[in-house]
């Protein structure tokens, strides 16, 4: 089936490509950005999601295309074939998809009516169909048929879905399903226990009760991590602990004292964008994915919150705010400011072990792990501070400033111009 043509955006990809995830018809890594010709003349893209080794794009027509490793039916084409170029998901024809999410090996699609469809690997219950079967075609999550889902996020083996009640934004509900061994669902699994490793598998969507009435407006997941952002820009984190800290099975407020407008999670780190267009990072910095050079002093780059925390600890460890201590100790979260070349950032994306952001001037900056060329800098060397990616585009700069988006997967990167 041909992907509709009407022109508009340019698509670029680079990094790990041995499963066809770069959409260029090849099965090799690319160390530098290459233009994805199959999508450059396609219909305008409104959403994109990069998983373990597969990618989903949503067109403004409501159509969906997928490519990459087809294991367990993650591409939704009815088989397990790997495809190296975008292929329309024909079974969703006639259903208007508006958003998508991609986990390690499962995919989720949201319709304009708030219906949730999933496909791919279901071994951990991450498809929400009440079993551990895989689905070769997108199947509706019937358990959520009575609610309107507004956002979905996929981690390695789990899924989060959020429903906002129209007219009462504070009454949003977050649902979680899939693997819960690291607390990534934000719920207690005692009630669903049925022995062995199965006890960690939640097969039907469950409400994350502790997030009720916090006014959650976005949910995020990757690896064994989960996050939610409220309408007031407050961040909740749960799941696997950062920097070898204990896991947190309950969402915890990670208050930086700043209003956040976007979050993106990696496998061991996270990124947050503030309303002041600053980027903050936390978690493991083993590959430079925090963008904060280890050689430079970090004391000046931390948030006031962290500084205040440090001050409190020095003053009186015992009397320090318990919540703040818990947040630091349980999750190992220590927000550090990423220097974004003196230019404000408007979009962020965390890959498994690398990071990227779009600046106000339309430039894309990257940092972190580079072993598969996922930084697009032509080299395999990790970078511990942001570098600008050079894209040989003919696009007018003013258009790039408005539209550019970057999406990072597991060892690869896509840019929409």
């Amino acid at each position: 089936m041909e992907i509709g043509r009407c022109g508009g955006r340019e698509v670029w990809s680079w990094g790990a490509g041995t499963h066809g995830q770069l959409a260029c018809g090849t099965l090799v890594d690319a160390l530098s950005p290459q233009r994805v010709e199959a999508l450059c003349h396609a219909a305008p893209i409104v959403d994109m999601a990069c998983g373990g080794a597969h990618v989903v794009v949503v067109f403004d027509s409501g159509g969906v295309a997928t490519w990459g490793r087809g294991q367990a039916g993650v591409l939704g084409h009815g088989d397990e074939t790997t495809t190296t170029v975008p292929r329309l998901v024909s079974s969703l024809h006639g259903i208007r998809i508006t958003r998508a999410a991609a986990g390690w090996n499962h995919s989720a699609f949201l319709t304009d009516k708030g219906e949730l469809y999933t496909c791919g690997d279901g071994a951990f219950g991450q498809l929400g169909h009440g079993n551990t079967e895989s689905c070769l075609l997108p199947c509706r999550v019937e358990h959520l048929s009575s609610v309107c889902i507004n956002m979905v996020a996929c981690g390695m083996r789990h899924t989060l879905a959020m429903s906002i009640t129209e007219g009462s934004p504070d009454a949003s509900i977050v649902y979680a399903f899939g693997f819960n061994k690291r607390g990534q669902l934000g719920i207690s699994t005692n009630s669903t226990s049925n022995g062995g490793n199965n006890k960690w598998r939640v097969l039907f969507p469950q409400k994350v009760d502790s997030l009720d009435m916090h006014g959650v407006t976005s949910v995020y997941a990757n690896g064994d991590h989960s996050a939610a952002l409220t309408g007031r820009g407050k961040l909740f984190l749960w799941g696997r602990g950062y920097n070898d800290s204990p896991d947190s099975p309950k969402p915890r407020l990670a208050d930086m004292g700043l209003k956040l407008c976007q979050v993106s999670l990696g496998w061991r780190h996270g990124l947050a964008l503030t309303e002041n267009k600053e980027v903050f990072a936390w978690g493991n910095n083993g590959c430079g994915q925090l963008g904060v050079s280890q050689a430079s002093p970090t004391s000046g780059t931390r948030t006031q919150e962290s500084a205040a925390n440090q001050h409190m600890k020095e003053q009186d460890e015992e009397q320090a705010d318990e919540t703040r201590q818990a947040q630091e100790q349980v999750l190992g979260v220590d927000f550090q400011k990423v220097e974004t070349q003196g230019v404000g950032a408007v979009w962020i994306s965390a890959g498994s072990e690398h990071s990227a952001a779009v600046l106000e001037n339309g430039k894309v900056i990257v940092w972190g792990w580079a072993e598969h060329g996922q930084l697009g800098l032509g080299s395999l060397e990790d970078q511990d501070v942001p570098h600008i990616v050079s894209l040989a585009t003919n696009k007018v700069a003013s258009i790039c400033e408005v539209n550019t988006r970057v999406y990072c997967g597991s060892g690869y990167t896509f840019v929409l111009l």
Partner: protein
Amino acid sequence: MSYDDVEIEDMEWNEELQAFTYPCPCGDLFQITKADLKIGEEIARCPSCSLYITVVYNPEDFQDSAPSQTLTSSKGAPAVKVS
């Protein structure tokens, strides 16, 4: 340095590869065979990159002489480290 410590029960048996696997952040899979486990190997490598993980398991579970038993979490039982 080991990328992560992963319990054998969290790895998946891959019939095609004839190995226990776990997702690697590069998109490929960390892999370790039953034969590896039998000789006490605890490193699962990714064929596509330099990363590897440490597999936490009880070697006795993979000995021929041992009675067959289900793989259990190392929690409760000491994780055996074999160098």
